[in-house]
């Protein structure tokens, strides 16, 4: 049964010669095939973070509101008062989604939901951040359709609303789409569950779906570049069953609430191997399990296959023996099987048996991140592409002849257009907490039983990160905070999903370390620690790596749900004011990409002190009840933000803008810069707002007034708002229907 451990076999398992030597010295002998498989998945990039952990440790990972610091548990936990806390996390499922978009995305949602509810938190909302190639490519349409349906079917069946997110389209993501899924859950402080196998003699239980051969080596598969042969690895993609997960959710929250659980962990990437070794390592104990007891859906599975399977909707529980009957009763109410597969031991080893015979015996500490799993320092090199990109002269671009046409083009660009094609497929209202629905700056979700609400958003502009990884990542945090502020919230903490190319390429690693530096600086400044997240390397195809894409998922608190604010103008005659400076650059803008097909120039920079002042003004103005709407200026610049503010779903409004232009009009109107918020306000409240602005000594500009149905900007732009809305609202739908 046990094949010889040849060099080929070692290489097939993605282990280097040095890593194999280390395994030999840990065990004092050659590993068995099962042990080789276990080391292979645990030391894969995906599970070990071996090439990223040194960088990640530089991020701020604790703060006054954190009940569990980053890395301590499956998801970070943030105190929100009233004895409640928020558990939230984002994770990637890029590679599976590239090959099998529907199941790849669906199981991504399933995985992140399990991460949150194994903490004892009831998931209250999900978000997702997606990146694809150009929608003119039929293959991309197929991917988008499949991914969105996968997310929708899983989340909808679970009854957890998908309330916000973002989607970008750019050629760099063509062969390697990004699918990042985030879930936010609420728990009572006393119900925080831990992922540790404490208590020698305690039972190790297996609950949920039976184990099949699906997903074997999913973690190692996620740790290599995609090639033409990748399609053959489709069996590395797992298959999801949201109905099973819904049952698991209800039963698991019940056993946690009744205090019947010592430790619990989801069997996600690297399945039974990862959950058992991590739980043991964390508690400083050992775990002794017998794979012949594991429920299987296929015959003849070897211990190797059982240990490495990534079948979905499974969990590992550690309980005290006396509670077995009660735990069984609860799971059986939901028609779920509970099987005792082993016990907690004191020797610190992960011991795997088959019918009692030991097939693997490894010190658990040597397998895990934070234990003795390998950690590498990678080399960096300033990328050669940047010199060319930065030498671009924006002034060499001609001013558009017809500003109306440019605006229409921008509003129809899939990066700016309404994402309703996507979010209407997600149940975004179930649980009746969606105070601000998808489409505005951040979603606002009420917390029942309190007056509070949570604001949540995902943000990252890949183009900015491509042109300047440091400023791009810093800006992603700043923009996320701005979106939370505009929606009435106070930023609390972030989770991150770091999507990059091959870390062994020095230029890629330079962008990675720069992004971490930028994110760290911004998070320290805003006091929004990183509670956890996920690194996804090897997002490359034969052509090239994706843009560096450090997606930020941020949550914020509204101490009173009534503070919830949308981006939409409310009443004709209200005055429109820009908080912040006018823009004098088009580097990295959507305007430059759409009108001139250039991704070049310098990405917008964030001055953190100035950013915070602008945010403070908006924060105070909302709390004093002065403003009726607030909208962050992002892709498409000032004019796009103004048009979006007019697209109130309860009834379209226009705008009459008469502003003083201090730069070239197209640059000022369509250029992109941070630290800018458009607000609308009743005329009588203007003096109070200006008082706040003066206190912070910030620039502002009165732009004009909310109007009927015309969208008018000086003598440059004059359009019917219904026409603009139609272009913006239906652009993606039309692209999807066009046969290309």
């Amino acid at each position, binding site marked *: 049964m046990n094949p010889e451990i040849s060099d080929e076999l070692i290489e097939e398992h993605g282990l280097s010669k040095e890593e194999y030597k280390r395994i030999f010295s840990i065990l004092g002998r050659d590993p068995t095939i099962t042990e080789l498989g276990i080391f292979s998945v645990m030391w894969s990039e995906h599970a070990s973070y071996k090439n990223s952990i040194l960088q990640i440790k530089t991020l701020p990972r604790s703060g006054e509101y954190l009940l569990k610091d980053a890395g301590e548990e499956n998801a970070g936990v943030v105190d929100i008062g009233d004895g409640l806390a928020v558990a939230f996390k984002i994770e990637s499922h890029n590679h599976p989604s590239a090959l099998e978009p529907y199941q790849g995305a669906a199981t991504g949602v399933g995985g992140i939901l399990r991460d949150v509810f194994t903490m004892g938190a009831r998931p209250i909302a999900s978000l997702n951040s997606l990146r694809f190639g150009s929608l003119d490519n039929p293959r991309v349409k197929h991917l988008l359709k499949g991914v969105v*349906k996968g997310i*929708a*079917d899983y989340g*909808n*069946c*679970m*009854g957890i609303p998908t309330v916000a997110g973002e989607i970008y389209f750019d050629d760099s993501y063509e062969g390697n789409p990004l699918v990042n899924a985030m879930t936010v859950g609420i728990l009572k402080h006393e119900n925080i569950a831990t992922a540790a196998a404490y208590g020698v003699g305690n039972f190790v239980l297996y609950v949920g779906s039976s184990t099949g051969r699906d997903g074997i080596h999913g973690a190692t598969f996620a740790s290599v570049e995609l090639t033409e042969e990748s399609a053959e690895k489709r069996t590395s993609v797992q298959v999801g*069953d*949201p*109905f*099973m997960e*819904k*049952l698991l959710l209800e039963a698991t929250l019940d056993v946690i609430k009744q205090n019947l659980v010592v430790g619990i962990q989801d069997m996600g990437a690297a399945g039974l191997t990862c959950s058992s070794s991590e739980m043991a390592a964390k508690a400083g104990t050992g775990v002794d399990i017998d794979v012949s007891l594991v429920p299987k859906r296929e015959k003849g599975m070897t211990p190797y296959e059982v240990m490495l399977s990534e079948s979905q909707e499974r969990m590992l529980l550690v309980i005290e023996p006396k509670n077995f009957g009660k735990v069984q009763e609860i799971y059986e109410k*939901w*028609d779920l099987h509970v099987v005792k597969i082993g016990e907690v031991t004191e020797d610190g080893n992960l011991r795997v048996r088959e019918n009692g015979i030991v097939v693997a015996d490894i010190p658990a500490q040597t397998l895990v991140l934070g234990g003795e799993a390998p950690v590498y320092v990678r080399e960096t090199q300033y990328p050669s592409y940047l010199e060319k990109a930065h030498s671009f002269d924006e002034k060499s671009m001609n001013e558009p002849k017809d500003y109306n046409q440019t605006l229409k083009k921008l509003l129809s660009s899939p990066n700016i257009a309404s994402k309703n094609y996507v*979010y*209407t*497929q*997600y*149940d*975004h*209202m*179930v*649980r*009746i*907490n*969606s*105070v601000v629905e998808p489409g505005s700056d951040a979603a606002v979700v*009420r917390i*029942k039983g309190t007056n509070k609400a949570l604001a949540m958003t995902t943000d990252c502009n890949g183009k900015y990160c491509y042109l300047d990884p440091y400023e791009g990542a810093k800006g992603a945090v700043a923009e996320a905070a701005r979106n939370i502020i505009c929606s009435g919230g106070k930023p609390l903490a972030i989770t991150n999903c770091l999507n990059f190319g091959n870390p062994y390429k020095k230029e890629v690693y330079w962008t990675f370390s720069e992004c971490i530096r930028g994110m760290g600086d911004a998070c320290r400044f805003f006091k929004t620690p990183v509670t956890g997240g996920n690194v996804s390397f090897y997002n490359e195809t034969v052509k090239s790596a994706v843009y560096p894409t450090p997606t930020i998922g941020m949550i914020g608190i509204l101490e009173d*749900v009534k503070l919830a604010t949308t981006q939409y103008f409310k009443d004709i005659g209200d005055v429109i004011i820009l908080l912040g400076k006018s823009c004098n650059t088009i580097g990295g803008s959507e305007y430059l990409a759409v009108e001139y097909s250039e991704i070049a120039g310098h990405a917008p920079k964030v001055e953190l002190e100035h950013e915070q002042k602008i945010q403070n003004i908006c924060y105070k103005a909302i709390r004093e009840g002065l403003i009726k709407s607030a909208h962050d200026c992002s892709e498409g610049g000032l004019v796009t933000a103004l048009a979006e503010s007019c697209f109130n*779903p309860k009834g379209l409004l226009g705008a009459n803008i008469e502003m003083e232009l201090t730069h070239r009009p197209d640059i000022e109107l369509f250029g992109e810069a941070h630290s800018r918020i458009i607000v609308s306000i009743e005329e009588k409240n203007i003096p109070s707002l200006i008082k706040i602005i003066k206190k912070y000594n910030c620039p502002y500009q009165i732009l004009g007034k909310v109007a009927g149905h015309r969208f008018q900007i000086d003598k440059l732009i004059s359009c019917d708002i219904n026409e603009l809305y139609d272009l913006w609202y239906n652009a993606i739908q039309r692209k999807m229907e066009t046969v290309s």
Partner: protein
Amino acid sequence: MKYNIIIFPGSNCDYDAYFVAKDLMGDEVEYVWHKETNLKDPDCVIIPGGFSYGDYLRAGAIAKFSPIMNEVISFAKNGGLVIGICNGFQVLTETKLLPGTLLQNKSLLFICKHQYAKVVNSSTPFTHIIEKDRVLDIPIAHNEGNFFIDDDGLKSLQDNQQIVFQYCDKEGHINDNTNPNGSLLNIAGIVNKKGNVLGMMPHPERTSDPICGVTDGQQIFLSIKKFVEK
């Protein structure tokens, strides 16, 4: 006023119905697990939305075999009020308490959005306090909401005033452009011949809480309460 809310494995709007009935309307509510064999003395039974049994085989198809459904059927046959929302409507057509069937949406996509529906029959226990032809904002969220029935069945629905809600726009226009899912005649909700069993695809519980901005859905709960308490 006492509701019973049936919970199947996979129900997920059970808690929403509970929250609205109990916390917003102040009514008594009890959950009834699908394996139970007795109702808990209800004035009205709610079969909530969700994906009972994962909607495997066909939406609502397996739920009809749950032990509690026998009780719901005899409760309905004795004139008890039953309201099935979304997946609950699908369960009611599968159990034949209501005629017709719900096919996949014409777009072949799940649709979740605010939706206007016109109250075309305001003489049912569920709508009697609502002015006839009033337009309500009641969101939809379904993959199979495309109501279909054969010609005879449709004629019977019309002859007996069984059509209660039709999809429309804000101004009340009922036509193809205001039909979100391809339903025959824009049908969004129907009652049985006796008028005591209502099935509707839109979710009244989702526009009942003022915190979420719209309260049109409350009208359904208020109607039921007034009918029961009169």
